[in-house]
C-alpha cells in the first residue's frame, strides 16, 4: 500500500503541471481551482489501482483531470460567475521578477490566453488545452475518445473559430 502510494505520489509530482493547468482552466475562483486540483488528485489516487503502467501516465492523468473538471463545471452550472481575469492571474503569481516590462508583457499574454480559454465550451476547452500542451493528435484522440482524423478536423475548426473570435475583439 505504502509503495503504491509512494509510486503514485512520485508520478503525480512529476506530472503535477497537468493537474494545475486543468484546474486553472476550468475553475472559476481561487478556492474553486484549489478544490478542483484536490478533487483531481483524490480521484486519480482512487483510480490508480486500475492504472496500467505499460500505458502513458500523462494520458491517464489527463483523462481523469478533464473528466473531473468537466463534471465539476457542470455541477456549478451558472451559479458561480467566472472571476475576473486579473484576479485569477494575480492569484497565480506571487513572485516578483527583475524585469517589470517583460513581466507585464507576459502577464498580458496569459490574461489573453485565459480570455480565449474561457470562451470555449467544456469539450473544446479540453481540446485546446491538449493542443496547447503540444500533445500529438493520437494522444489527444486517446484522451478524448476521438479518432485521429476527427481530432484533426476539430482542431482546424477550433483554430479557425479562435482566430474569428480574436478578430471580433
Amino acid at each position, binding site marked *: 500500500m505504502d509503495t503504491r502510494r509512494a509510486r503514485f505520489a512520485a508520478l*503525480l509530482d512529476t506530472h*503535477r*503541471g497537468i493537474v*494545475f*493547468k486543468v484546474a*486553472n482552466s476550468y475553475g472559476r475562483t481561487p478556492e474553486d481551482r*484549489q478544490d478542483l*486540483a*484536490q*478533487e483531481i*488528485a*483524490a*480521484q*486519480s*489516487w*482512487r*483510480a490508480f489501482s*486500475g*492504472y496500467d503502467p505499460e500505458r502513458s501516465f500523462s494520458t*491517464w492523468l489527463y*483523462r481523469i483531470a*478533464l*473528466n473531473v473538471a*468537466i*463534471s465539476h463545471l457542470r*455541477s456549478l452550472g451558472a451559479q458561480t460567475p467566472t472571476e475576473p*481575469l486579473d484576479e485569477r492571474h494575480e492569484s*497565480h*503569481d506571487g*513572485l516578483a521578477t527583475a524585469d517589470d516590462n517583460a513581466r507585464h*508583457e*507576459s502577464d*498580458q*499574454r*496569459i*490574461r*489573453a*490566453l485565459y*480570455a*480565449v480559454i474561457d470562451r470555449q*465550451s467544456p*469539450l*473544446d476547452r*479540453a481540446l485546446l488545452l491538449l493542443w*496547447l*500542451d503540444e500533445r500529438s493528435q493520437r494522444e489527444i484522440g*486517446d*484522451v*478524448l*475518445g*476521438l479518432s485521429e482524423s476527427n481530432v484533426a*478536423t*476539430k482542431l482546424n*475548426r477550433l483554430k479557425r*473559430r*479562435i*482566430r474569428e473570435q*480574436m*478578430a471580433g*475583439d
Partner: protein
Amino acid sequence: MTTTNTMNPTTELDDDSLDDLKLAWKTLDARLQRQNALQLDALRDRKIGRIRASLRPLAIGQTMQILFGIVCVLIGVGLWKTFYAIVPVLLAGIVLHVYGVATIVAAGIVLGGISRIDRSLPVLDLQRRLAKLRRSYIFSGMAIGLPWWGLWMLPPMVIVSLQNAKNGVDGLPMWLWMSLALCALAAIGTLWFHRWSHRPGREALAKRVDDAAAGGSLRRAQAELNDLERYVDGEDR
C-alpha cells in the same frame, strides 16, 4: 477586448496569433510549476484520503429503492398467494408484485450505470455514460413515481374487499368503483394528452409538459447526450 491586441499587436489573423497562445501557455506552465511545487505536499497529505464520492448518495438511494421494491414484491406475493379466491385482492397483489419488480429493475439499471463510471475513461466516453446515467435515473424516478396516481387505491381496495369477504358481502362499494374509474380515466387522459402535446407543431407545449413531469432535468440530460453525439459526429458547430 483589448487583451488580445497584446497577443498579436499586428492584428494579423495568421498562425502568429495561435503561436502567441502557445507562448503564453508555456509561460503559464513555468509559473504554475514554480508556484505550485509547495502546494502539492499539502494536497497529497490532507486531501487524498478524503475522496468526495459524488455518486455515493445516488447509489444509496437506488439501494433503498431496491429494498422498497422487495417489500412491494413480498406484500404483493403475500396478497395473491393468500387471498387468491378474492378477485380484487388477487389483482391488487399482482399489480403490487409487478410494480415491485419494475422498481427493482429500474434501480438495478441505474446501479449498473454507476458501476460503469470510471474516471480514467476517455473524456467523451465517460461524459456519455454520465449523461445516460442521469437519463436512466430520471426515467427510473418517473417510472416509480407516476404509477402512484393509481396505486394509492390499492390499500382501500384490499381492506374493503377483505372486510366484505369476512362479512359475506359480494362486490365492492360504489365509491370505490367510481374512484377506480376516475383513476383509469385520469391515466388514459394523461397518456392521450402526452401523445397529443408531442405531435409536430406543438414543440413548445411538449417542452412544458416534459418539464412539468421531470422538472426539466430529463430534457437537459437528453440535450446533453445529443450535444455529445453531435460533438463526436463533428456537427458541433
